[in-house]
């Protein structure tokens, strides 16, 4: 039985519609599963019940008290405003130092030629193969012998001291800036210092934004290193991450779970927005860095 062109077109159209529904339906179902923990996080943040809600997914009674308590009713366990300030201080300083370090190392490795260049890069690769937590213990003792543990200064040092190792992404970016630019400047009598500050840095805004944001975010999400450094368990010295982490301690979780979720919502929103904003750089960083080794 032969079909008219009109019928064929209509069949194709309905086939396309079915496929569209199937595709989007499947994605909707997947998204639902993927978002369950996020829903639970937000729902628990508005729960009047302070412990882990195990009776039903959504709270019986909704309230804003958790957020109010988080900001205005601090106690010996939860001092969110203080943690926020601590983390902000650490993040700002660590971010400035490590961004500078990263840009300095990546520019050197990308643009300057000197004897030790290759050996230094190889050492960098080898150092990356050791588990970070291994050196952390020794770092703790070194900081302790300097009398620096339990201080924000120690955290700033830990987050920024070795940041030069993370130079590969920025180096990849610098490699793409045409060499003829600096050569022209050199002919006009510019020193390497001038080339760095007047030519390369102004041209590298995207990678600077990426480096700065990544360095700024690290103290907000790290709970391992901060936990090792802050041994006195004085909650006034906590960062947001270890403060929230601490709230889920076995002895505290029944009183602080909803407060934890409220705090988690408060820090997660800006972090997620920043991440979505810089996902493009992030992808370039991961793929570019790994391919070049």
């Amino acid at each position, binding site marked *: 039985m032969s079909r008219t062109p009109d019928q064929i077109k209509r069949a194709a159209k309905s086939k396309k519609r079915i496929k569209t529904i199937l595709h*989007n339906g499947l*994605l909707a179902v997947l998204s639902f599963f993927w978002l369950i923990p996020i829903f639970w996080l937000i729902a628990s943040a508005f729960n009047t019940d302070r412990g882990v809600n*195990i009776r039903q997914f959504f709270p019986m009674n909704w309230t804003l008290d958790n957020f109010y308590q988080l900001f205005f009713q601090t106690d010996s366990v939860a001092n969110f405003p203080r943690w926020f300030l601590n983390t902000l201080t650490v993040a700002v300083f660590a971010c400035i130092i490590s961004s500078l370090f990263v840009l300095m190392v990546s520019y050197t490795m990308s643009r300057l030629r000197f004897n030790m260049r290759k050996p*230094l890069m190889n050492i960098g*690769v080898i150092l990356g*193969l050791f588990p970070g937590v291994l050196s952390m213990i020794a770092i703790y003792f070194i900081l302790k012998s300097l009398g620096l543990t339990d201080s924000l200064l120690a955290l700033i*040092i830990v987050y920024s001291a070795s940041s030069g190792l993370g130079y590969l992404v920025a180096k990849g970016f610098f490699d793409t800036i045409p060499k003829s630019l600096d050569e022209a400047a050199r002919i006009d009598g510019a*020193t390497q210092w001038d080339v760095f500050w007047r030519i390369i840095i102004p041209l590298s805004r995207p990678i600077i934004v990426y480096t700065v944001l990544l360095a700024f975010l690290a103290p907000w999400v790290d709970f391992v290193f901060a936990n090792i450094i802050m041994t006195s368990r004085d909650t006034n010295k906590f960062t947001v991450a270890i403060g929230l982490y601490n709230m*889920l301690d076995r002895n505290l979780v029944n009183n602080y779970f909803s407060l934890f979720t409220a705090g988690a919502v408060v820090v997660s929103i800006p972090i997620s927005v920043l991440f*979505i904003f810089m996902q493009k750089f992030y992808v370039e960083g991961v793929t570019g860095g790994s391919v070049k080794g």
Partner: protein
Amino acid sequence: MSHDFKTGDIYVKLSLLFLSIGFFRRHQIIKGILFSIIQIGFILFMIFTGIPNLSRYNTLGTIQFESVYNPITRRNEVNNYDHSFKILLYGLISIIVIIVYVYIHLKNIHTQRKLQWCEAEGQHINTFKEDLIQLKDDRFHITLLTLPVSGIVFFTIIPLLFMILVAFTNYDQLHMPPTKLFSWVGFRNFEILLTTGSNTVTFGYAFRKVLTWTLTWAFFATFLNYIGGIILALLINSKYTKWPKLWRTIFVITIAVPQFVSLLLVRHFFADQGIMNTLLSSNIPFLSDYTWIDWIRQLGLIGANREFVPFLTDPVWSKVMLILINCWIGFPYVMLITTGVLMNIPKDLYESAEIDGANKFQLFAKITMPYMLFVTAPYLITNFVHNLNNFNVIYLLTSTRVTSNQLLANANASDTDLLVTWLFKLTQDYYNYKMASVIGIMMFLLSAIFTLLAFNYTIKSNKEDRFQ
């Protein structure tokens, strides 16, 4: 170097003893003063730190901490004890200082010889100001690298070397400075970890168990996520999908939330008394008195008298759950990474295959996957290495679980531990630094092997014409 020394004048020869003498001779006064300070500093460092620590380096100290009550002062007085930890650390720093100093010294002979030559030939000798200007230009790499590299030396290299040395000592809870001494034991810790002899049975056993699970985990975590992520990316970028940006953002949100938030939540979600088990203990729709848990029990997936599903507490369940929960993070992550590469697959490859009558699955298996594997193989191996050390997922989800396997428990390990979380627990909770260091070295070797593979592949894969 020796040629410079032989042909040099008296000042070059004397510079072997006095670092700065040549500079004074050639009127580089400021440089001379700086190098004098370096030499004096080195000598003082050796007297007060280097020699006292290095002289005890072979024993790591012999005088045990003692606290004796002194009747005259009526106080407990502490003897002048040896602190093994400080001896090990400062000794290591001394060795590094000596190496750097000897390097400066030898290099200096060459510099002095050059200065002598400049003077003899009537060449210009840089003033201090000119030297400084060079740091902004020809020697700019020194200006830029000094601070970052010293940061890395003090906070990565020295700690790592220190921990490597610890692997050859008996530094653990029974040998904790300052009250106790520890000393060198050679390769004994490696033996304990690698053999299953009679007295070392638990560590040898635990190491094999943990290593097997680490490799299994890394394999599944990498490849499941890889395939799932690519399928998700294909789905989102398909021409039938509306609002691809919206779907993408939804999935990206799940990785944008900090892991200590999302994973800790998931841990409580799947706890033994958690919300998931509450939901499962409700009735299956249309079947009265028959709950989901009953059904799971009848399938034989949980014990006959269990009232809940031990998602994160049973050895088998928890391993499966870890891999599944990791998919929750991994799919969006791989989707994010691979979307760009997928868009670059030449469209004509698909078109010609479709003309030849290939179906959707064949297109995926014969074109998409080989192409993706070809382009992203280095990333895949890097990701595998990353998963070998995937601390967050394992630690946040299962750090509180207790193992019922006594042999593992003796070695302070648990069924779901990776090498990295085991190492972390050994140091943070049990102060077993010697074994943690050995495990750290093993992890380095493991990562090194797979990274070398990645490097090898990148070099080999230079035949790019396969898909062009």
